[in-house]
């Protein structure tokens, strides 16, 4: 089966110019692949570079070497060398990202925050809102909050809005960065369910999950990031 | 029989040639404001120095001059200018619109139709129609050059938004020969239609602003408007109290401290001609009877 994500020898080093140009190697020789319908969970202690790898796949962090190839619009695209507008296209059509923290625009209603990825993909506003509502309800966000901007919500509510926003799209690749970190058991179960649905739909996922139970439930394969540790 | 100390029509010949060149250019480009080296005249700016210089440049010995101010031949301004040219050029003067070959005017176009043998000279205070909204001369010139006249409609838009109709009653902008937007000097918009396709040559002189522009005979002059707010002639809902004319432009005259008023023709020659023909209005008739009684 053709992998959706194929990473070969990717590496990342931060150079901190404000601290006398100190070099902080993060990862090196990152190589793994993810097939459609598969959920690969990155393992390793904090600071091992799990989040950095996720951000490199999303094009949020630049990749200093190697290749990060994804299936995009029927062809293979190397994120590490892609043009900014190609990466924008990838984010619109191929890769979704659920981060730990919500970076929402002030004043935008939660329902619209969730619906936005669908709008960007060209879905009509009414349908996008409808689907956003269904997802918010599943994640136990009461209707009366939908019109409020998520910045006024509690941490757990914000994260659920964020999860809804991440899971609403029909993108073939999903990156999950601690999706269940501050959720209660009921909502954790919903997320596990959502991941299972995505798998059935053939979505390739890379996840960072610290909760052993959740990891056990969603992981098809574990990739140990400590093997990519860069020697300083 | 001009006074020996003056050159014919006051201005020296070189100055008149300079002004004539400007006039010729203005006629060649209808509605375009031609700069000219406006001279000091023996009268203050605002009293018609632009019109006087144009008149001086075009006057010939056989011309018959008429000068009107607000349509009237007998106001101070009209009389002074008429006397000025009587003295410096020795030309014949008249109050009859029909007989005049050159008519210098402030604010009005005579009611009687003009003919091909006539030149109408306007005194213009502010020649730039865009000035009200765009204070930069460099910018207004560029707008004229490129025919960017959207701004002119902004002014009309504001009128409608504020008053429900285009309230501009004088200096109502026109488009000349389908090209230049022009300020017809502070003539009431009642007179605008008379400018269109007029057999007489119309010349405009602005002394302080140093501009001359022109409308050649039989040139199209269209008042700007909106499709849903077309140009209309403004008119008092009254007839002349002296001659009974119903279609002329009227002045409102307050007759006492109690607020009584009457409306009379602003064009004195037109009104007097009509009265001489036997037309009577509400005020003149009893007077005539009383005098005979």
């Amino acid at each position: 089966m053709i992998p959706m994500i194929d990473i070969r020898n990717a590496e990342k080093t931060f150079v901190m110019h404000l601290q006398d140009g100190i070099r902080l190697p993060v990862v090196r020789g990152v190589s793994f692949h993810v097939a459609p319908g598969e959920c690969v969970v990155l393992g390793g202690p904090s600071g091992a570079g799990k989040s950095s790898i996720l951000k490199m796949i999303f094009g949020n962090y630049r990749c200093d070497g190697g290749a990060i190839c994804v299936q995009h619009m029927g062809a293979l695209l190397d994120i590490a060398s892609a043009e900014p507008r190609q990466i924008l296209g990838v984010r619109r059509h191929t890769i979704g990202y659920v981060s730990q923290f919500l970076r929402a625009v002030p004043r935008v209603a939660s329902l619209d925050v969730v619906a936005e990825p669908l709008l960007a993909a060209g879905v009509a506003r009414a349908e996008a809102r409808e689907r956003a509502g269904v997802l918010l309800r599943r994640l136990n966000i009461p209707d009366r909050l939908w019109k409020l901007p998520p910045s006024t919500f509690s941490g757990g509510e914000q994260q659920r809005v964020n999860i809804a926003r991440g899971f609403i799209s029909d993108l073939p690749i999903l990156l999950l960065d601690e999706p269940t970190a501050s959720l209660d058991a009921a909502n954790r179960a919903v997320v596990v369910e959502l991941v299972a649905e995505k798998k059935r739909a053939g979505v390739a996922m890379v996840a960072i999950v610290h909760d052993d139970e959740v990891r056990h439930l969603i992981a098809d394969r574990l990739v140990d990031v400590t093997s990519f540790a860069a020697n300083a | 029989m001009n006074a020996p100390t003056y050159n014919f029509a006051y201005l020296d010949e070189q100055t008149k040639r300079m002004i004539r060149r400007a006039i010729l250019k203005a006629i060649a480009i209808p509605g375009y404001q031609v700069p000219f080296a406006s001279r000091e005249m023996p009268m203050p700016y605002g009293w018609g120095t632009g019109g006087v210089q144009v008149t001086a440049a075009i006057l010939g010995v056989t011309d018959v001059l008429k000068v009107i101010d607000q349509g009237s031949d007998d106001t101070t301004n009209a009389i002074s200018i008429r006397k000025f040219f009587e003295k410096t050029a020795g030309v014949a003067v008249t109050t009859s619109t029909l007989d005049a070959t050159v008519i210098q005017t402030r604010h009005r176009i005579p009611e009687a139709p003009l003919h091909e043998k006539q030149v109408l000279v306007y005194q213009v205070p502010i020649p730039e129609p865009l000035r009200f909204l765009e204070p930069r001369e460099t910018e207004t010139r560029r707008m004229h050059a490129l025919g960017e006249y959207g701004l002119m409609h902004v002014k009309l838009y504001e009128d409608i938004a504020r008053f429900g109709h285009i309230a501009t009653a004088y200096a109502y902008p026109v488009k000349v020969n389908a090209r230049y937007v022009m300020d017809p000097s502070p003539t009431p918009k009642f007179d605008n239609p008379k400018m269109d396709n007029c057999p007489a040559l119309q010349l405009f002189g602005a002394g302080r602003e140093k501009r001359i522009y022109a409308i050649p005979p039989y040139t199209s002059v269209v008042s700007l408007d909106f499709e849903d707010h077309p140009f209309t002639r403004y008119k008092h809902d009254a007839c002349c109290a002296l001659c009974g004319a119903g279609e002329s432009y009227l002045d409102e005259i307050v007759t006492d401290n109690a607020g009584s008023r009457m409306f009379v023709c602003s064009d004195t020659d037109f009104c007097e001609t009509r009265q001489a023909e036997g037309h009577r209005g509400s005020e003149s008739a009893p007077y005539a009877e009383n005098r005979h009684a």
Partner: protein
Amino acid sequence: MLDVTKAPVDNDQPLLLAEGLSKSFGRLHACRDVSFALYPGEVLAIVGESGSGKSTLLQLLSAQMTPNAGSVSYRMRDGVMRDLAALGEAERRFLFRTDWGFVHQDAAMGLRMGVSAGANVGERLMAVGHNHYGKIRQTAASWLERVEISTDRIDDAPKTYSGGMRQRLQIARNLVTEPRLVFMDEPTGGLDVSVQARLLDMMRTLVSELGLAAIVVTHDLAVARLLSHRVMVMQGGRVIETGLTDQVLDDPREPYTQLLVSSILPA
């Protein structure tokens, strides 16, 4: 193993192309060798501190200033790429009134302060020959609504408006002719934080709904993050770093960019 084939070529042509733009004032190099392509629907932020050359660059890009070297080309509505320097003045001004917008930091530069809001919005329509008062007014009213200005205020002059309302009116005035490219010079400068947030949100919505391309000059990285897809960081007249907005802001490479990013006050 898979072969890495060439990335799928996007057939979209650039809307605006800057090549080797340079401008100096005497010995001061305000702008040095700037090249980039802007695509339809793309929002580019030019960031940098005061004096970095970003405002000069905006002037060069919008053909309000002639470069000492280099060129700017723009894809006209007929699809033909034209060198802006080769356009006649009439064409350039027409472009400015129709296919381009320019939002100034100081609303007084972009509005007629003594003329009603309705006429401010309607002016660009009248400039391209619209001649029906009722329709012009209706269009103006619908644009005021879109920028969240009550239509009760349509006959009030912007000098009676608050700073935030003036900026929103400026945006309506620019967008009424459905331009494809809008230049913005510090559009939220000098506004209260809450007013800024509202304006940014509105601009973001309009830009994405209308598929506008925009070039936004700002010293505020938060504005760049909210509005733009791509960022160019300028220092001393040069573009020192460029890339996806979140990439440049989350993973800055150049010392100066790292300094800028580390100078953001925590929200």
